[in-house]
Each structure stands twice: as C-alpha cells, then as structure tokens.
C-alpha cells in the first residue's frame, strides 16, 4: 500500500523499535521478521506517526508492541477487521497487519478473505509457522496432514490450506511469499508489499523453534535451499537449482520440471513469470501440490484495482457534487412536517 510519504525525516531501523522488551523465545523466526520490517521502513519514507501496526492474538501478534509506531493488539482473528475500520475511517494512515497462520486462517479466515476482495490499501504479513505457537503447539490450518501435535497425537486428519491459493481464490490483488531466514529477499518483499496499492498479502515462512522446529529448513538452509526454491521474477524464466540448471516449463496448463543440461531443453522453453496473471499465479502457487516442483517465493500476483476506501471517497465526492453537503436541519425535518401554531 502507499501513503503520503516524506523525504524530510531520515529514520534508521532503531527508530522503529519500541521500549518494550521482546518476549519471543530465543531463536524464534519472528525476530528476523521484526528486524527486516524495521530495516525496510526507513526507505519507505512514511512518517512514524502515520504507521499503525495491528494484530490479533498469537506469538506473532505481539509484533505491534515492539514497534515504536501506533499499534493495536486486538483479539484473536480480528486484526483484519479492526484494520479495515482504522483504514476506512482514516485513509491517510499506513496500516500494517501482522498475523499468525492460526490467527489469520483459522479463526480469522472470514475477515481475511473479505479484506482481500474489498482490496483495502493495507499490508498484511502472515507469519506462517504451521503451528499454534502461543497455545503451545496444536496443529494449524497450514500444518501438514498427519502432523503429530498436542491435539493430534496420531496425526492431523486435515488437509492444509495453501495460503497463496486461498488468497487468489478470495480475489486478492497482491500475493507474495518470503522466508524469515532470507533477510534480503524478505526486505525486498516487504518493500513490494508496501508499494502495492490495495491489500497486499505476504506469506512469510517462519520457524517456530519450540513447537515446529525446522519446518522450512528444506527451503531456508544452505544445503538444500537452492534445489528446492525458485525465486519468481517478473518477465524472467523460472530457473533454479544450485547450478541454475533446472527450470519449469508449461505443458498445456501442467507445470513440469526440466533439466537445462539434458541437451533437449533451454531457457527459451521455460515459463516466463508474469505478475499480472491470476491464472498463472494459481499455477505457480499450486506447485506445492506437486512433490517434484520447487517452492516458489517472490511476488505471485500484483494487479491494480481501486481500493475500497478510494471507491467510497469517490462516492462521497459524487454525492457532494450532486447535492452538496447536507443541511442538518433538513435532516431533522425529514420528508414532511406540519406547523402547530
């Protein structure tokens, strides 16, 4: 999302740190996300007092306490709805929502999807650790099937959501993914998130080292990362692998992995990423359904559409243009009156 910016005040990351002690577990991925947000904000040029961070309940939802901006730690699942009210009533603010996978996709699922279709100009960061952290380790709607947790001692019987698919299904306009352990990429994605006009949804894979340690190590650790992650870049072919020797091409609407060293395929055969296609975004986002395909990170979709608050601002303008602002005594009088003398 965008908001009026300033180039007068120069901030550093530290300016965004509040005076509160951080109470996450040592080693928690949330620390990195906090750091990247604080590092990115100075470059966005938004004055501090215009920033509002809003969260529900969960480990990740403590985020606002650690930001020296306006902040609201609301109730479980409702951050998106509270944020809607904040933004609509005061469109000048730069509104950020931080939410856990449970907070956003379990109890908060309904407000999540309605926020996306309404396209309010807010930034939504989901800390996906695929677990309920704060309540000490139950499976979440993004936990893998068969996962053993406190509430699923013989394995979770549920199929998880694919968060980016869900966001696409809900008619979102900006959908991206990054990882706590890739600070540079994460900063880049936070910037993109901030710049998009409309609801920006950024899924951040986050390690909960207490209840779901290593959930994303395949994608974040040196040894395995490059062969298992593909970085999406607009207009660029989908190439990945330690030696940049793997690629993805489309076979009709089926994505297939190809070996660029097989003598048959070249970069020219590959799928070119296009951030403006909802259909392509869905194909990419569905890679996770196919075991042999890498995990895409980056911007899946970035399309322009009027924001909700913009639309109603226009409606007000039209009403005022047509009939002017209302006379309050006319309102009191109503349609018809009579005089008692």
């Amino acid at each position, binding site marked *: 999302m965008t908001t009026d910016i300033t180039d007068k005040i120069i901030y550093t990351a530290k300016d965004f740190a509040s005076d509160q002690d951080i109470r996450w577990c040592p080693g928690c991925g949330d620390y990195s996300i906090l750091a990247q947000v604080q590092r990115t904000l100075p470059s966005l040029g938004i004055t501090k007092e215009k920033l509002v961070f809003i969260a529900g309940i969960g480990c990740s939802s403590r985020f606002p306490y650690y930001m020296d901006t306006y902040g609201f730690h*609301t109730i479980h699942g*409702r951050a998106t709805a509270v944020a809607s*009210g904040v933004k*609509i*009533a005061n469109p000048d*603010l730069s509104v950020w929502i931080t939410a856990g996978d449970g907070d956003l996709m379990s109890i908060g699922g309904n407000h999540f999807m309605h926020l996306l279709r309404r396209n309010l100009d807010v930034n939504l960061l989901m800390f996906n650790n695929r677990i309920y952290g704060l309540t000490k380790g139950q499976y979440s709607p993004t936990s893998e099937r068969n996962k053993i947790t406190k509430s699923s001692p013989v394995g979770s019987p549920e199929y998880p959501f694919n968060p980016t698919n869900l966001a696409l299904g809900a008619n979102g306009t900006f959908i991206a993914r990054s990882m706590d352990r890739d600070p540079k990429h994460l900063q880049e994605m936070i910037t993109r998130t901030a710049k998009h006009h409309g609801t920006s949804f950024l899924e951040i894979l986050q390690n909960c080292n207490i209840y779901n340690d290593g959930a994303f190590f395949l994608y974040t650790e040196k040894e395995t990362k490059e062969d298992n992650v593909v970085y999406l870049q607009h207009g660029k072919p989908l190439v990945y692998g330690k030696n940049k020797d793997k690629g993805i091409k489309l076979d009709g609407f089926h994505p297939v992995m190809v070996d660029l060293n097989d003598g048959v395929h070249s970069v020219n055969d590959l799928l070119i990423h296009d951030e403006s296609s909802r259909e392509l975004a869905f194909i990419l986002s569905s890679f996770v359904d196919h075991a042999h395909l890498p995990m895409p990170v980056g911007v899946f979709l970035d399309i322009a559409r009027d924001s909700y608050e913009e639309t109603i601002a226009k409606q007000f303008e039209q009403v005022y243009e047509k009939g002017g602002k209302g006379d309050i005594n006319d*309102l009191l009088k109503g349609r018809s009156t009579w005089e*008692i003398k």
Partner: protein
Amino acid sequence: MSEEILEKKIKNKKEVESVTVRFAGDSGDGMQITGSQFTDTTAIFGNDLGTLPDFPAEIRAPIGTTYGVSGFQLQFSSKDIFTPGDEADVLIAMNPAALKVNIRDLKKGGTIIVNIDSFEKKNLELAGYEGTPLEDNSLDGYYVYKVHITKSTLEILKDLPLGTKTANKCKNFYALGLMYWLFDRPMEITLNWIKEKFAKSPDLVEANTRALHAGYNFGETAEMFGERYEVKPAEHFTQGLYRNIMGNEALSIGLICASYNTGLKMFLGSYPITPASDILHNLSKHKKYGIITFQAEDEIAAITSAIGAAFSGAIGVTTTSGPGMALKTEAMGLAVMTELPLVIIDIQRGGPSTGLPTKTEQADLLQAIYGRNGECPIPVIAACTPSDCFDIAYEAVRIAIKYMTPVIVLSDGYLANGSEPWLVKKYEDLPKIEVNFRTEVEGFAPYLRDENLARPWVKPGTPGLEHRIGGLEKQNITGNVNYEPENHELMVNLRAQKVKNIENDIPLLKIEGEQSGKLLVLGWGSTYGSITAAMENQKAKGNKVSHAHLRYLNPMPKNTEEVLKSFDKVLIPEMNMGQLSKIIRSEFLIDAIGLNKVKGSPFKAKEIEEKIEEILHGGK
C-alpha cells in the same frame, strides 16, 4: 372510537376523541404503505398518534396464507395518547387470512371492512376457514361492511394500459380513499406522494390517483355507511414544527446529529438483521452528511471494524439485534479493555436464538449488562418512545466520548417500527458534545486519566504520541501489558468506577404522579407508552399510582433507590421474564413485583391496569 358512536348509523359526522384503525392484508397488498400514508395525513392533520406495524417473517409468503398477513395499526386522537391503541375500533381486512389473524385484536362491537372479492373458496381455505365467516355467526356483535374493493378498483382502471396484476396492486389506495372519507381526512398528501413515488410512470400515477378517489367517492355515494367520524386536531401540542418519526429513523438522525456536532467522522460497522437493518439503510442514504457505512461480513467484523474506526479517531457505531448482539460480546470486552468510545445498538426482537425475528421483546437486558467474559462493565441506556431514540442515540455518543467507553443502546422492534409525532428539534438547540484529542506530547501516557477517569483519545497520525493498546490487562497509566495481581485489581476497579461515575452526569429519576405512596410502576424501554396510557386511565379512575421510567440502566440515576423506597410496592412490567426485576432486587433488595409478557407484542394499557388494580385492591 368510543363504543356508542358505532352503535347506530346516524347521518353526517360524529365527533370522537380517539380511533384505532388496523389495516391488514397480504404481504403483497401494500398495507404498510396504506398505513404510513394514513399516518402522514393524520399527523399533518394535527392529531396525536401512535403506530405499530406487524410484519410477517417471510418476505412474500404464498398469497392468502395466514403467515403472509401484514398489518399496520394506528391510533389517532384529539388528545394526548401514548400507544398505537390496545384494540382496534376499525379493521380493514383485505382477505380472509387477514381477518382470521386480526380479529382477536378487534374491540368487541368494532367495525370490520372486508374486501368481499377475496372471500372466495380458495382464499377461505388458505386462511383455514371452513365455510365463510361472513355467513356463519362468528362475526355477530361486529359491524361488518362488505366492499368490492378489488372489483371496483379493476373497473375504474380498465381503460388504462395496465395488466390485471398491476391494476390489482392499486386496490390498497381504494381502501385508503374509503378510510379518508370515513375519517374525513384530506387527500392532498397522498396524492402528492403518489405523484412523486411513481414519477417515472404516469400510468401508475393516474391509476393510484383514480383508485384513491374512487374509494373516497364510494364512501360518499354508497348508502352503506351511515355516518363519518371526525377526530379533531389535538390541542395539547406545544407550538412548533412537527413531523412524524419512527424509532429507527430517529435513532439514525440522532447519530448523524451527534457526528455533525462533534465534527468527527462517524463509522457504522453493521451486518443486516431484522429489525435493525433500517438503521444501516438510513445511514447509507445519508451520505451527504458524511456518514461512512461499512456493511461487514458478519457481526464480529461489524463491531471490530467500528472499534478500529474509534481507535483511528472516528465515532464507531455498530447496530444489530439479539443474535448479532451475542456474537459481538467478545469484541465488547476489547473495547472495554482498550477504553475506546463505541456505540453498540441492539434493536431487540423475540428470542432466544433466531426466535421471532419480526416480533418485539425486551429480553436482551441481562445480556447487555452481564453478557461478557470477565468483569466487563458497559453503560447501558434504553429509549422509551420512537422519538426518544433520537435523544438516546445522541446521549450515547456523548457518554462514549466523554468517558472513553463503549455504550450499549437498547431499543426494540416496537419502537424501531412504531412512529409518533415529534416536535422537530433545531440543530442549534442540541447540547455540544466536547471532543478533546490529545496532541500534547509532554507527559503523555495512554492510560492517564482525567477527572472522569477517562483516558486520553489520540488520533493515529499525531506526531510523538505513538503508543500501543490491546486486550491484555494494561498497566495503570503506562498501558503496558501487565499481569501483576495488584495492578489487575486496580484496573478492574478503575474500569468499574469510571462507568459508575456516569451517574453524576445524568438526570435524576423523575416520578410521574405522587412522589411517594402505595405503588410505583417502574418501567424501562418501550413499555413507556403502555404504562403512561395506563396511568392516565388510573388517574381518571381515581387510583393513586405513580410511574418512573429508567432510561439509564447502568449506571442508574443516583436517586433510584430513594425513589423506589418511597413506595410500598414496586411493579415492573417488562416484555421478558423479569430482567429489570432481577437487577432491582439485587441492587436494592426490594421485593419488586414483576408483570411479564413474552408474546412478541407490547403491553396493552389494560393489562397493566389490571395488575395495578390487583395490587391496589387485591384483585380485579
């Protein structure tokens, strides 16, 4: 209509003091329009009046069935009246089902005007009649007039290029015309309304105009009706400009005026639900006053978005009815903990659960006062007449802002859809609602308190006042998260005391009638009209009984205990099983007597009077 006047048919006009008319027909018969037209005309004519619509829960139930019957009752008078009337003097029944459903609310000896054209086999069967009530003796003791409303309407419209279906839809104006004749009302207001309403189709203007005239003329020329009745304009009205006003409308404009007065944006977060939806509709219509309406995905989003709006410096409002109220209770706790101004409006309906969506009830009082987890005090105020909804809404905004607290407003289906004449307020006469956003950085803390114990309201965007709030227990003054035992107890007490302090800021409880004595009738909410009507009658009978009405339920006026204890007995009529009684008993250890009605409809004055007499004289 006093009984004697109906006894005989005499030529010419007969003057009567009050009349209660009920229009009843199929949902598609336009009875609500007929009723509200009669109301507008009668109001402008200068009568005092009270109205009560009665909708079915179905949108358009199959034609002719009893559950599809829609009704509209109206009492009008040359003197001061307070209710839509206990029983109807005149019933207009557009079909057999309407007769079937409404006959029980007709006064013995009253008048029935039926649309005889609809009394044929199919409709009679649909209504559950065996045979026709017009021919057995079941209507003995009533004056029954059989009018060919449908046929006559179709007849006079036959040269117009309308289908039968459309022409048929004009028959309510025929009925209305007849009533205008019967009660000697002018037709201009309705004629103008028809012109405006159907501006886009001249044929409909012509058709409805003709139907109205035809009905009127039928009264004039037919030998059927022996006399007309005249209800003179009321004289008790103070001088000034009047309008007719419905409760939900009054509430809506009360909110708008409060927004206007504070200069603040108003944000309504709402999810449609009967009978509260009209507030959403009204406020949506009034965009030119800058009101933002947000139709949320559910009641939880409705209230939490309003809380967000309040956090960002707007007046947050949310409107709903019982089931929606239940869904909002968790979020109310957040508003209490974060001490943000918020107006929560509950237009009560019949419960529990989905219950009786279109019927009235007062059974959400205990939910409003106690229905949240933890110690979670919220001020509760209740409107007592349709026009009082204006004042209550305005007052709710004042309290919310001054005390930085959510405020619950209780109204109900009866007030919401009922109407009465209202001496139009001048905006300039409304009290000023002060708003002081904190902007001073020096010495700021989010949970500092002013003399009312209110914390500062800060608009995000204010430099230097960046701060965080939330639903975890707050440390006194700093507002930081805090779990310390003493701090928690302190904060629980501070929140309670803040709400209690409001008692210093509201009017004392007034007693109508003797200031002490044998019996006080204590009411709250929409029972005001019925109780007041009962009091008038009791006064006339020479019975000594007083009346006090609570508009503030939490906290109550400071003198409430004193008032109650000035009487030997306290009677509390409520459209529930005794919810205010419970509170009064607990607060003041007074053995209040409950008069409880849970029938989805308001008290009749008579019902209250019977109980009063039973208490005063030990039986009726």
